[in-house]
């Protein structure tokens, strides 16, 4: 009973927040609605017993990702109203419905077949964080390391693209201009 009440409450809140995020014409409203929706989604993870995933959701999404987006919104001109595409409404709605039906079909196919067995079953008597650690550092160690390398690459890319000297960009200058800057400052730009 309690689970049902929590599920419906947070489902309504999440759908409302994300609907605001995609329909509002103010970028600031979209950002705050998206952040609220992320936190409401972590509630589903806590209901489902995935405590660690819920904590990661709050830390990564409403901490890191939302801070990055807030930085981006300060950089760009977001005070004016956002224009929207005036495409054919019927095509858009039709494509959305078709995609949604496709997703339902993909996810309901294993339920219909009813022959799924747990590949890495949950350990009895261990907390969710402990179970996650057991599986992540044994079966999924290589993908974990690859994800770490990918995050490093993304971090370096972000620093190079948007790093220091915000008024000039190394990716947009010619080689000659970069040489001039180097000679002027008598030191390496990078």
């Amino acid at each position: 009973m309690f689970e049902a009440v929590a599920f419906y409450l947070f489902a309504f809140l999440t759908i409302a927040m994300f609907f605001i995020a995609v329909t509002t014409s103010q970028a600031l409203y979209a950002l705050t609605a998206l952040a609220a929706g992320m936190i409401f989604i972590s509630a589903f993870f806590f209901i489902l017993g995935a405590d660690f995933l819920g904590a990661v959701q709050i830390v990564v999404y409403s901490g890191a990702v939302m801070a990055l987006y807030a930085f981006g919104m300060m950089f760009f001109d977001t005070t004016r109203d956002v224009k929207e595409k005036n495409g054919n409404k019927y095509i858009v709605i039709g494509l959305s419905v078709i995609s949604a039906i496709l997703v339902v079909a993909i996810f309901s196919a294993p339920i219909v077949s009813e022959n799924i067995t747990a590949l890495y079953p949950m350990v009895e008597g261990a907390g969710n964080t402990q179970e996650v650690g057991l599986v992540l550092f044994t079966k999924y160690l290589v993908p974990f390391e690859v994800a770490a390398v990918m995050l490093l690459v993304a971090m370096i890319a972000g620093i190079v693209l948007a790093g220091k000297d915000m008024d000039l960009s190394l990716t947009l200058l010619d080689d000659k201009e970069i040489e001039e800057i180097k000679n002027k400052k008598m030191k390496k730009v990078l």
Partner: protein
Amino acid sequence: MEIGLNHYLILSTILFAIGLIGVMRRKNLLLLFFATEILLNSVNIAFAAISHFYGDLTGQMFAFFVIAIAASEVAVGLGLLIVWHKRHGTIDLDTMSTMRG
């Protein structure tokens, strides 16, 4: 009333449809990124629900990797947006059709 796997999958589908609507109607690239985050989060809910109802931790592992990919996508995407904004002064999608295809 018992909440089953189908409830979570239907919720995930609704959120995915909202994200698709956002992807289709947004012109501003920053708000297009917001819609992409909604898509990734709706899939995460489905992964966590399947992981819970089948007693299998693989779904949660995939959700972790999806979160990692989302974080790196935001970092690289915002860097590219800043470069584009420096060059053209706008981040609307219409200004990116330089080839006029």
